[in-house]
């Protein structure tokens, strides 16, 4: 199964020939002409024509919703009619109203915006052709990653341009609240989902029936973000399973013959929201989505964001993927529309598939030269970046070295051999002048100037200022973490355990995967394959010799080994800071709201005192991930009775986890049992 989803020739420099710049044509012909083009797509053959209103009607009349309505009426004591009305209201708020006219309007607007923002938008034609075919055969789910608001309608835009049915898109409810824009989005195919639905049974029911009805009927391709939301760190997020389950259920229950999943990887040279995101991670609240805000943001339109790549992955048959993973007979003995908790088998299958999709998105994304450079910049001591400056010569040499390593590891690099390497790197730095600048053969980190001008800044503010730049840098590094993370975990295991025994290293490798399960994407139940892959890759770069029992270091690959280990160091340091905080006296029960600033304060203090060398500990993302990981390891528990999401710490367990991570005590398998095969 491992390799079935991989494109055959995935590794290496991306062949530019299969990517077409869709802006090229727009720059040479009329935008209005494009918007008004004849749109004549081939829809799913199994679909009977159905309007948005008919779809809504079918949803409200669905047996499943009737069951739930009755159930809720019984529980709350209100009448069935009242509950039905409420369901109606929910559906009204949620549902899309896809209209071709608005697709045209969207097309026209986006052409204008895209032409200004990007030098080019590359799309792989091969993937698009396969999609066109797949859409006619089965209901299709488009699954892009989400790195910027800009990509919200990009898929619709591309499909419109190439005469493929435009999708309905799952969006967060805040977008619906935007004046005018919300309605335009709705008519462009967006449907809106509330955040934090929690235990609102009726809402879940309406949403899932709506999603299932769209899939069942093959109403339109459905697009949703399996990561749930926009990644603030540009790193893949642990997939959310609710939506995924709704989408797959019609297949599990035999209501459709098959469903096609199309993973889509969108990669940016430079992300519009880079600075906003970094600040958000440092605790500056995200501006509310509003039309005014959108207009004000138009100043970002003045800048250059390089190119955008949209890589349509190979369409995947759910039927094939789930073969042997789900026994569809399990639905034979109860009415299929009876509200039922999914079985453990179904949950595991959904989770596996969701993780798999994110991994394919990762593998399909294009890595820019800048990501390589960001990676290396972050490994330089911070004072070098802020004060002395890093020698350009040194950076470029190292970047070329890393380029080779990345290629060896099968990364898709957006680094065509046509331009001279030095030009490629220079222009990468030029594009990212908001983060680094080059002066007299050295590279410096850009510090925000505005803050500095008003008044002398405090030490703490200085830390935040540097942190913002570091986190931006980190986000570009994050774009390529997936290439290195497996061998990096092994390199770290070797470094910390100082062991050469395969089984010991495997145990520690598993511990690290477990601990970082919210940080990086690992497909469940693939521990031993991941470990094998890590061994192979380390061997490939000459860093280790591998025998049946042992993994021994080789002198040849020290450079790679120390690079890989340094790649994970910020994470390990950050985790240790938080373990330390949680082990302190006085912290027993806390809420997430208390936890984040408290940890931030501690980290700031440690950075100032020189004890902590990474600014990434300040990122709320890392902090939340630690909390989730500890909950998973049952070192932190959520208090049931509490309304405010209070947590309780098991200090001994946290300390033990920290000690294992620092190599003081050997890991016993914390939660997952080791893979049976080893």
């Amino acid at each position, binding site marked *: 199964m491992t390799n079935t989803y991989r494109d055959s020739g995935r590794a290496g420099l991306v062949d530019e020939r299969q990517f077409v710049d869709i802006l090229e044509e727009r720059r040479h012909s009329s935008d209005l002409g494009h918007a008004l083009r004849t749109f004549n797509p081939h829809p799913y053959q*199994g679909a*009977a024509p159905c309007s948005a209103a008919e779809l809504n009607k079918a949803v409200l009349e669905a047996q499943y919703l009737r069951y739930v309505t009755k159930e809720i009426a019984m529980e709350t004591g209100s009448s069935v009619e009242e509950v039905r009305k409420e369901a109606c209201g929910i559906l009204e708020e949620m549902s899309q109203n896809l209209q071709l006219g608005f697709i045209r309007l969207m097309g026209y607007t986006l052409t204008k915006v895209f032409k200004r923002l990007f030098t080019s938008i590359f799309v792989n034609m091969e993937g698009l052709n396969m999609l066109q075919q797949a859409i006619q055969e089965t209901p299709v789910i488009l699954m892009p990653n989400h790195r910027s608001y800009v990509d919200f309608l990009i898929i619709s835009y591309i499909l419109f341009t190439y005469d493929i049915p435009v999708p309905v898109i799952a969006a967060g409810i805040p977008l619906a609240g935007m004046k005018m824009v919300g309605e335009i989005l709705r008519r462009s195919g967006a449907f809106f989902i509330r955040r934090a639905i929690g235990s609102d049974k009726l809402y879940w029911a309406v949403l899932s029936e709506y999603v299932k009805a769209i899939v069942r009927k093959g109403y339109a391709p459905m697009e949703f973000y399996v990561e749930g939301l926009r990644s603030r760190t540009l790193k893949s997020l642990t997939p959310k399973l609710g939506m995924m389950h709704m989408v797959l259920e019609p297949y599990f229950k*035999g*209501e459709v*013959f*098959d469903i096609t999943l199309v993973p889509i990887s969108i990669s940016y040279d430079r992300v519009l929201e880079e600075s906003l995101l970094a600040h958000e991670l440092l605790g500056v609240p995200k501006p509310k989505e509003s039309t005014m805000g959108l207009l004000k943001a138009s100043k970002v339109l003045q800048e250059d964001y390089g190119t955008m790549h949209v890589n349509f992955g190979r369409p995947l048959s759910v039927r094939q993927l789930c073969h042997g993973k789900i*026994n*569809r*007979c399990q*639905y*034979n003995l109860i*009415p*299929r529309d009876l509200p039922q908790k999914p079985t453990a088998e179904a949950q595991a299958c959904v989770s596996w598939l969701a993780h798999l999709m994110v991994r394919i998105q990762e593998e399909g994304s294009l890595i820019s030269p800048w990501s390589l450079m960001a990676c290396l910049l972050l490994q330089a001591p911070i004072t070098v970046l802020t004060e002395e400056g890093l020698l350009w010569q040194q950076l470029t040499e190292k970047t070329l070295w890393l380029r080779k390593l990345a290629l060896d590891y099968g990364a898709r690099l957006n680094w065509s051999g046509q331009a001279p390497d030095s030009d490629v790197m220079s222009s990468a730095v030029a594009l990212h002048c908001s983060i680094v600048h080059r002066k007299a053969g050295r590279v410096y980190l850009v510090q925000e100037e505005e803050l500095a001008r008003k008044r002398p800044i405090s030490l703490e503010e200085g830390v935040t200022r540097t942190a913002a730049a570091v986190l931006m840098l980190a986000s570009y590094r994050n774009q390529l973490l997936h290439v290195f993370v497996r061998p990096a975990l092994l390199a770290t295991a070797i470094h910390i355990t100082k062991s050469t025994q395969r089984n010991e290293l495997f145990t520690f490798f598993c511990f690290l995967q477990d601990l970082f399960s919210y940080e990086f994407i690992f497909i469940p139940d693939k521990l031993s394959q991941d470990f094998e892959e890590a061994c192979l890759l380390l061997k490939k770069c000459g860093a280790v010799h591998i025998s049946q029992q042992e993994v021994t270091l080789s002198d040849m690959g020290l450079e790679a080994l120390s690079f890989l280990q340094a790649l994970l160091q910020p994470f390990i340091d950050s985790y240790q800071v938080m373990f330390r905080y949680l082990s302190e006296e006085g912290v027993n029960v806390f809420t997430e709201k208390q936890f984040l600033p408290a940890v931030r304060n501690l980290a700031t203090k440690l950075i100032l005192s020189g004890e902590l060398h990474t600014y990434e500990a300040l990122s709320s993302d890392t902090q939340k991930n630690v909390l989730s990981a500890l909950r998973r390891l049952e070192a932190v528990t959520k208090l049931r009775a509490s309304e405010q999401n209070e947590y309780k710490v098991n200090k001994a367990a946290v300390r033990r986890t920290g000690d294992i991570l620092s190599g003081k005590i050997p890991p016993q398998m914390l939660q997952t049992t080791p893979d049976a095969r080893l």
Partner: protein
Amino acid sequence: MASNSSGGSSDRQRIAQQRLRIIAGHLQRPVDGDSAILAAECKAQGSKPDTSREEKTVPRRRQEIMKWNGWGYSDSRFLFNKKGQAEFTGKRYRLSGMIIPGLKDWFECTFGASLQHKTPATPLLNSSAVQPPTLNEAFVEELKSTGIPFSQDAEDRVFRAHGHCLHEIFALREGKFGRVPDMVVWPNCHNDVVKIVELASKHNVCLIPYGGGTSVSSALECPPEETRSIVSLDTSQMNRILWVDEKNLTAHVEAGIVGQDLERLLNESGYCTGHEPDSMEFSSLGGWVATRASGMKKNIYGNIEDLVVHIKMVTPQGVIEKSCQGPRMSTGPDIHHFIMGSEGTLGVVTEVTMKIRPMPEYQKYGSVVFPNFEQGVACLREVARQRCAPASIRLMDNEQFKFGHALKPQVSSIFTSFLDGLKKFYITKFKGFDPNRLCVATLLFEGDREKVLQHEKQVYDIAAKFGGLAAGEDNGQRGYMLTFVIAYLRDLGMDYYVIGESFETSVPWDRVLDICRNVKARIVRECKERGVQFPPLSTCRVTQTYDAGACVYFYFAFNYRGLSDPVHVYEQVEHAAREEILANGGSLSHHHGVGKLRKEWMRETVSNVGMGMLKSVKDYVDPNNIFGNRNLL
């Protein structure tokens, strides 16, 4: 023959004759004069044993009238004549002697087949290719002393070594024979069977009961691992109606009688059983009981389990039967249900008491066209909900509708073809039906004339609510004809690289559409993945309605040119299709049975405990596995 000249010839007889002609319609070509089918008042048992004997369809030597490597009568087959037109030979059927102009185009377009590429069957049965019999001399000796006829002739043995699964017929056409029974015995009555079973038990001989030979579950295949002498017990000569009880409306019949004889003989007395499985020309009463058969008109008459009042079966432990004929009993689990569906693993059914009904006064076919299959299914569901299903109601999908259309015989008058054109125009243009989506339901009403007409109106009114348009009697009748000639058509396909098969399931109402779509799609996908060059014919129809679900019948056929092992590919696809059926909440079988073909799924179908129950019955009734066909378990 009943005599019309006698003064006692009543009105009733005359009416009955009239009805008979109608009834015979869908089975037999109308014969000049009334000699073939006559109505007669019921006579008590044994009144005319000799005359009725002559009318029996199935002789001991089946080869005298039937094909050895294909379906049905030797004189009836489809062929493409020199002009490339399809015709059906013989005189037995309505279609016999007719030209079917549309079949060639349909055949070539549907399968990508060509009349240039032929795959003719081995013409003659080569007896020397048949394994010599392994005989149990002691058994043979004792059998001889009983006077029960038997044979070790190769032809006789080959005829009883197979049913009509694709792989069985395919092998025969290639002149290949696997393990065949070592001898055939023809008991003449219940007592003969008792003697044979006793001897078999005494000498440890394996018995395989044989009725009509229409099995499609590999039930008649001799287990290759069987080392004992295998004796095929052919019940075809036990074919008498022993008595008719007009007070209770039951008939006591020997189990070897085939469907057409049973109906014809009862019809002579003005009665019928109403049990009409598609195979009724050849399948036997004992076979129906042993496989839990289902008849086309079960809505009025019931399935075999509803029709049977009393069963007598000979087992190695002795004879099993009930002590009375009470219509329903609360006496523990019904022992009939150990017998029905036992597929010859426990014993031989020798005599059955069955319900009979007076023949219906009036019979009428009908058909309804729906814009699409979904609407059609919704209509059938509503008919079932209102419990107003006619004697038969079947819904064919679009592909099968086209198939049926291709079987239209040449029309003689320009007027008819003009009318046909007009009808087509009305449905597709005026009503806006998409010819590639529309589907048709065929109907058969039976009963009092008045009630039939009333019933008809009720059903058509429901159909109208689902967008259905009445499409005439002719379409309906042709739909039923399709089921009788489909097996002959398979032989035609096999002459031109096309192989196919049908299989069935039963499924709850809410899953009917899903199972139809998914199974058909699975067949198409599996064929593609296994290198079948041309998309297969993958089609279905809903053939029976029940309160809680329906029976669905699939046809699947493909052109195997370019495949090195077509039968293997065929079997893999069929296997996948069955898995798909089970995954979609369908049953392992509605009426074909399990045999050896579907054995692997029995455990998951009836649970471990269920398997244990069935096994323990087998262990008690037949501890030495005398009935060793190894079906079911």
